[in-house]
């Protein structure tokens, strides 16, 4: 493995470690401090990880936006688990958070049409009774055309 690949792996692992532990991804500055790397090297790793679709970056700052299933910014998919608040990128990702954390969770969502509150509960790996339907607007081959929209 090249040193670049090893560095990218270290960045990815710590992005997930921190996100799962705290609810938000680390910044470039925090990654650089923890990994004892120049910020420019961390930024290069993030760009490579984004090119490989392992992460999604914010368009201007190039900080992490999505470390799937987690969102770095508040969304309408709030997930309460392990006494922390996480945000999913969509309802699929919101359900992915308790899957990744292997934790019980409460998802405070809402109807995409009318905004009516919709709550989902995961307990011991089982989804509690809930009405509703999940809509996938784009076919699978187009999910990455615009992952932020999707």
């Amino acid at each position: 493995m090249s040193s670049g690949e090893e560095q990218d792996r270290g960045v990815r692992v710590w992005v997930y470690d921190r996100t799962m532990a705290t609810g938000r991804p680390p910044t470039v500055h925090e990654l650089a401090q923890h990994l004892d790397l120049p910020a420019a090297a961390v930024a290069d790793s993030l760009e490579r990880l984004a090119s490989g679709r392992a992460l999604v970056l914010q368009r201007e700052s190039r900080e992490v936006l999505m470390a799937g299933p987690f969102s770095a910014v508040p969304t309408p998919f709030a997930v309460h688990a392990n006494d922390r608040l996480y945000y999913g990128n969509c309802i699929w990702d919101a359900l992915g958070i308790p899957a990744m954390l292997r934790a019980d969770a409460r998802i405070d969502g809402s109807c995409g049409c009318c905004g009516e509150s919709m709550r989902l509960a995961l307990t011991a790996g089982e989804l509690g009774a809930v009405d509703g339907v999940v809509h996938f607007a784009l076919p699978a081959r187009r999910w990455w055309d615009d992952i932020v929209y999707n």
Partner: protein
Amino acid sequence: MLLFRSEEHIDRWCKSWNVPRGATLSPRQTWKLAYAWYSPDRRDPQWRRRTVDETEELLASLGLTGPFWNLR
């Protein structure tokens, strides 16, 4: 991917955003998909993205087959 109260609310949303209707899953089906997709620990240094073949296999194992779920 959005959650809706009912099929009727999906129709209203598609109409107001002028987008074609896609595919629907129940919350329980979506949980199964989320669990299969996201349960591998991404803190594991050996983690890697699934290949297209592996992803199609995962979707098919959940009954998600047909043109909408094809990746190519």
